[in-house]
């Protein structure tokens, strides 16, 4: 069996508890101390650092608010790849595999796990140690690849999916864009607030329903 790998990150880098402001500037209510060790399901710790860094270049944390690092996007991706999606359980994978028009979408044989391994090999094991400008350059040179397109899509997913999937830590992504999350009713609000921001405080599915959800990635791959 594969040795259990952990990703060690300073807790203050992860979402924590955040408040949303109307100016879309989230701020941290309580910074956490120390480090957290997140058990990895698919990546090695080294691979996770490479992917975390690439995600951070795609969705950087900057003056405009937090990014992939704070949201824990790499944890989200790790779980997706470990689950049935990563193994292509829900994609048609019978051959023959032939190239076709772009209108026919990705026709390749590699599943997301294999695509990531190829992508990480191209980025290099020391990608996270390169100067930021070099990291950006490297990603630019890979923009057209299937790997990059997956990575970009997964980064957005990890920013804005329900936290039960491993990303959007502390609902940081939803606070950033002013999305309230799942909510039982907008009956009294839908035809109000015309032209003005209406930003109820975000809550996760588990917080709304008072029981944990069953994310698809936890199903046997």
């Amino acid at each position, binding site marked *: 069996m594969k040795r259990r790998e952990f990703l060690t990150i300073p807790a203050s880098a992860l979402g924590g508890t955040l408040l949303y402001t109307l100016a879309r500037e989230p701020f941290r209510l309580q910074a956490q101390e120390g480090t957290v060790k997140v058990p990895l399901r698919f990546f090695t710790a080294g691979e996770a650092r490479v992917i975390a860094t690439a995600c951070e270049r795609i969705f950087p944390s900057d003056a405009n608010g937090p990014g992939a690092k704070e949201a824990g996007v790499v944890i989200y991706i790790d779980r997706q790849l470990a689950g049935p999606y990563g193994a292509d359980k829900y994609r048609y994978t019978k051959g023959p595999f032939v190239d076709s028009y772009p209108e*026919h979408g990705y026709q390749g044989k590699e599943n997301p796990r294999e695509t990531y391994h190829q992508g990480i090999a191209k980025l290099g094991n020391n990608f996270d140690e390169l100067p930021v400008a070099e990291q950006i350059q490297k990603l630019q040179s890979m923009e057209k690849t299937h790997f990059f397109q997956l990575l970009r899509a997964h980064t957005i997913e990890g920013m804005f999916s329900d936290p039960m999937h491993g990303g959007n830590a502390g609902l940081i992504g939803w606070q950033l864009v002013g999305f309230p999350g799942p909510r039982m009713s907008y009956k009294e609000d839908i035809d109000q607030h015309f032209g003005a*921001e209406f930003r109820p405080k975000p809550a996760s599915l588990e917080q709304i329903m008072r029981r944990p959800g069953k994310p*698809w990635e936890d199903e046997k791959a």
Partner: protein
Amino acid sequence: MTNLKPVDVAIIGGGWTGLAMAKELVSRTSVSVLALERGAPRTLADYAMDMDELDYAIRLRMMQNIAEETITHRHSARDSAVPVRQYGSFHPGTGVGGAGEHWTGMCFRFMPDIFTLRTHLTEKHGAAHLPADLAVQDWGVTYDQLEPHYWYAEQMMGVSGKAGNLGGKLIDGGNIFESPRSQEYPTPPLKHSYASFLFKEATRKLGYHPYPTPAANLSENFTNPDGVTRPGCVYCGHCSRFGCMIGAKSQPTNTLLPVLRKHKSFQLRTGSWVRRIVHENGRATGVQFTDANGDEFFQPAETVVLASFTLNNVRLLYLSKIGTPYDPAAGKGTLGRNLTHQVQGGARIFFDKPLNAFMGAGCVGQRISDYDGGNGLTGEDGLLRLGMLSANSNGELPIASFGALPPGTSKANWGAEWKAASLQWRDRVAQLSLAGEHMSYRQNYMDLDPSYTDKFGDPLLRFTLNWTDHEYKQQEFAYDLSAKIAPAMGAKVDPTRPSRARYNVIQYQSTHIQGGAMMGATPETSVVNPYLQHWDVPNLWVLGASSFPQNASGNPTLTALAVTYWAADAVINKYLKHPRRLA
């Protein structure tokens, strides 16, 4: 292969049309009915925890598993087809309720001229002015014949809306271009969103006739004629691609199944994948299916009803060798002919104010039909039919909507500049949407793929489908119309004009796939007769939009249900009393 105890009627598919037929049969006759559904059972409780964009709207957890069966596609008979490996331009359903569980719920009646389109276009423009490859046909049934069945379907679901034509009397605020209705809608229209309100005000000012989208999202508590009570919609915004957690969206499991459950003569068998319709000397003897364990069964039946959505209706007819395959080169044969989709278009529009677009329901929206069908078109520029233009608020979710930007706002689609622009434009982008009529053409059809197979090794269905000049003209017209409406809404239109692109199997368009087993007046031109009875196998009935010779602008389900009820009357009042070919 295990032989099972015979039933009177075996229904293939437990979605909208299959369960609608089942309900008529068991509540109005004494026949035994077995519905075979290849997916899993579903209940309201399943939907309480589905408000999760990732699993349901992105990974498409409710859809049929494409790894097991997909379609292949090519743009023309000269190309070779490749499989659609991931969804996709449409999203077929699985499980009890079929795609009727995760649908949006827009409920349109088709305009009368759709049912006699060949006759209508020939009279209006002259045969010589129609495209040479046009394959549109009359249905063999008229709007007036279907009107009571439309009304029956609307009551079953409690469709909300505002009539614009009650028995010929035009009513302001409703769709004055609609087909005459005998009754007002069962429930009043849904509430406005900001976007739908702006669209309504703007189009009125411009002299058009906006009206609320007729909706199978209930606007208030409603009890249907079968005694099924459901609550009004709460605009949760997790609607299309999700099941409704409170049952406000009409789904087969919350409208038909509660009634069916009360009848001992009805059985539903899930996990049952029908592989063949077995037939002998022009009569179906039953169906062959494989269950979830891989065991094979033969289910004998007096009558077989095929209701497995357009794709499997056509595929099962091919696999079972029933009917004459269409040969596009010779222009002969009928099975697989007249494949249509729906024409999408319009334009993105940009606001400088927030829309609060996360609130909504599948059908919240306003639309205009001033150019629906052939309204307002001369045909001189080759544009014969258009469709409806609308602003919809079906609940904008953060993954799919992030990064919607006016062109030129950011060089890359990732990185700091992109992030800043995306945050700036967040919740300020809307879509004006064309739902365009898709006419049928000789070169667009379905048959079996010669190389790709499903999980059992059976050939996949193959689409040969591309857009023609007419659809590009529709999109260009709709773009220009959107560009006129956007400023009146206080928005800027995306300057990117429609690109005359080939048919794209990856980009979601709509799960409105029609044709292939079309209905019509003669066996030479259609697969089923005007009662949906197979011409060659009279104890086989084929339900659903596979029977549409062409698509109207409107979404197909209400019409598929109306035609199902029309066929149910024929089965119950004529056929079962004296089984025979009814036409």
